[in-house]
C-alpha cells in the first residue's frame, strides 16, 4: 500500500496499523505491552466501572440497609407495645427477643446440624435437577420429538406445589431422606428445564450457518454455538431453580422427624417456640438468597463475554 492509502487507514479506524510484522511480535507479549486501545479495553474499563459502582450504588445500598433497619425498629415497637389492630403482634416476639434466642442457638450445635442437613439435601437435589434439567431442556430445544413427548408432563406437573407431593413422595420412595430430596429436586427441575429450552430455541441461525460453513459437525454446533448461546437463559434458570429448591425443601422437611432447617421451623411451631420459628424462617430466606447469589457468581465466567463492551 502507498502512503496515501495508509493515511486513510489511520483516519478511518485504528485498524491496519497492526497489520505489519510488528503485529506478529505483539501477540507474543503480555497485556502491558499491547497497544493502548487494547489496554484500555482490558484493564481500564473495569476500574472505571468499579469506582463508578461505589459512587452510584453506594448510597443506594445505604438506603436499602436503612429500610431494613426501619422495619426492624417498627417491629420492635409493635411487639413491645403489643400492637393489635387487625394485625396482631401480641404473640410475636420482638427482634431483641429473637436476637437473644439466635445467640443461644448459635452457641449450641443442634442449629448447625439442621443447616448442614438442609444444605446436603439441597446440594444433592439441585445437582440432579441441573444435570437432568439441562439434558432434557437441550433435548427438547433441539428435537421436536423430545419436546412433544416431554412437554405435556411438564405442563401438567409444574403447577403442583411441593407440599402436594408429600404423600406420594413418602409412598414411592424408600427413605425419608430420598423423599425430601425428591421434592426439592422437583422444585428446582422445572425452571431449569424451561429456561434451557427457551435458551436453546433462541439459537441464532446465522451463527449456526457460519459454524456449518466452517465444517462444524452437529455435536460441534451444539457445543460451540447452541449451548453458549443458551447460557444466559440457562444461568437465569439455574438461579431461579436454586430459589425454588429452598422453598420446596421446607415443604419436604415437614416429613423429616430429625434434622433440617425446615423441620426446625415446623417443629418450633408445634412446640410453640415463637422466636425459633422466626429464626428458622429467616435462616431459610438467608440461605436461599446466599445460594442463589453463589450460583450467579459461579456462572459468571460462563458469561464473561457479555460483560464488557457497549456495542452489540
Amino acid at each position, binding site marked *: 500500500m502507498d502512503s496515501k*492509502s495508509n493515511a486513510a487507514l489511520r483516519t478511518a479506524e485504528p485498524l491496519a496499523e497492526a497489520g505489519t510484522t510488528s503485529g506478529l511480535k505483539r501477540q507474543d507479549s503480555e497485556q502491558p505491552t499491547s497497544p493502548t486501545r487494547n489496554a484500555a479495553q482490558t484493564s481500564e474499563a473495569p476500574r472505571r466501572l468499579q469506582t463508578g459502582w461505589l459512587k452510584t450504588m453506594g448510597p443506594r445500598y445505604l438506603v436499602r440497609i436503612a429500610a431494613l433497619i426501619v422495619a426492624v425498629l417498627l417491629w420492635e415497637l409493635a411487639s413491645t407495645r403489643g400492637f393489635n389492630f387487625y394485625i396482631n403482634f401480641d404473640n410475636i416476639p420482638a427482634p431483641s427477643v429473637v436476637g437473644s434466642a439466635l445467640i443461644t442457638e448459635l452457641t449450641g450445635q443442634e442449629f448447625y446440624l439442621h443447616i448442614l442437613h438442609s444444605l446436603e439435601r439441597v446440594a444433592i437435589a439441585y445437582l440432579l435437577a441441573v444435570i437432568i434439567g439441562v439434558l432434557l431442556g437441550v433435548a427438547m430445544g433441539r428435537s421436536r420429538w423430545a419436546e412433544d413427548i416431554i412437554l405435556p408432563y411438564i405442563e401438567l406437573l409444574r403447577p403442583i406445589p411441593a407440599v402436594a407431593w408429600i404423600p406420594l413422595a413418602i409412598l414411592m420412595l424408600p427413605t425419608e431422606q430420598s423423599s425430601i430430596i425428591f421434592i426439592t429436586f422437583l422444585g428446582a427441575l422445572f425452571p431449569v428445564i424451561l429456561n434451557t429450552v427457551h435458551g436453546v430455541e433462541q439459537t441464532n441461525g446465522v451463527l449456526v450457518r457460519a459454524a456449518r460453513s466452517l465444517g*462444524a459437525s452437529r455435536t460441534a454446533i451444539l457445543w460451540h454455538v447452541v449451548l453458549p448461546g443458551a447460557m444466559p437463559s440457562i444461568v437465569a434458570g439455574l438461579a431461579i431453580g436454586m430459589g425454588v429448591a429452598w422453598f420446596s425443601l421446607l415443604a419436604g422437611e415437614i416429613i423429616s422427624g430429625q434434622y433440617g432447617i425446615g423441620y426446625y421451623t415446623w417443629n418450633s411451631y408445634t412446640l410453640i417456640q415463637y422466636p425459633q420459628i422466626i429464626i428458622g424462617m429467616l435462616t431459610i430466606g438467608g440461605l436461599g438468597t446466599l445460594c442463589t447469589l453463589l450460583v450467579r457468581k459461579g456462572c459468571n465466567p460462563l458469561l464473561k463475554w457479555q460483560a464488557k463492551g457497549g456495542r452489540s
Partner: protein
Amino acid sequence: MNEALANDNRLAVLDHSRLQAKSGTPGAERGRISVRDVDIVFDTASGPHTAVENASLTVRPGEFICLLGPSGCGKSTLMNTIAGFVTPSSGEVRVDGVAVTEPGPDRGMVFQQHSLFPWKTVKENVAFGPLMSGVGSQEANSVARTFLSLVGLAAFENAYPNTLSGGMQQRVGIARALANYPSVLLMDEPFGALDAQTRIMMQENLLDIWREFRNTVVFVTHDIDEAVFLSDRIVVMSASPGKIIADIDVDLPRPREQSLLTSPEFMALKRQCLDLIRKETLNAFKQQNRAG
C-alpha cells in the same frame, strides 16, 4: 516502500502450499463454480414464491465476481445455494465438478454482520475452522494468529467481538473464513453495514489479501461502485423473480487502489453498468407489464 515490504512479510506466514496461485499445475486449480438452470421456489403462506428463476452461471477458478442487484432480487438466495444452505428446486450447482448438497469448509462464508461467535475471543473465532478440520488446538491457534495478522488485528486476539468496531468485526469474519484455505469465498454484502470510509479501506484490504490467495470470490452487493472496484466480472440480477440479466466484464488493471475510483476508466465502466442495468431493468418491467 516500507509498507510494501512489511506486506510481503506478513503474507509469507501463509501456508503457500495451500494457496491457489501457487498450486501451479492448471489441472490442480480449485474453485470452479457452475450453476446450471437453477430455479429456487419457496413455499410461503401465500403460495409458492419464485426467488430465483433459470439462473446459469460459471465462475472460473480464481475469478472475483460480484452479484449485483436490487434488494430482494435473490442474490443471497443464489449465493446460499452455492454455499449449500438452500437446495435448488430444479437445476444444479457444482463446485469443482462435485454437486453441492450441504455447506462445507471448501466454501468460506462472510456474512453481512453479527456473525462472529460472541462467546469466543477473536482468536478463538478464527481458530474455529481449523479446529473443526481436526488439527490440534495449538496448530489452530497458530493458524488463527497468522490470519489475524493478515487482516491487521493480531493485537486484538483476546478481545471479544462485541468490543470491536463493525469494520474490525468484518475483518475477523474474513480471517475466520479464510483460515480454512477455502477454494471459494462467498461474501454476502460483507461491507454493507459500514460507513463509506471504512468500506473503501476494507475493499482495498480484501483485494490485498485476495491477490495472494487467488481463490474464487463471489461477492454480493447492491453498490455499483463496490462491484466495479472489486470484481473481474459483474453479474447483474433483476427483481421478482430473480433473474440474471447481464454479465459485464470489468477490464480494469490490478492492483486497484482508491485513486481508481475517480479515474476516467472507472467512470466509463460505471456508466456502462448503469446504462446496461437501467436498460435491462426497463426491459424486465415492460415484460412484466405485458405478462401481467
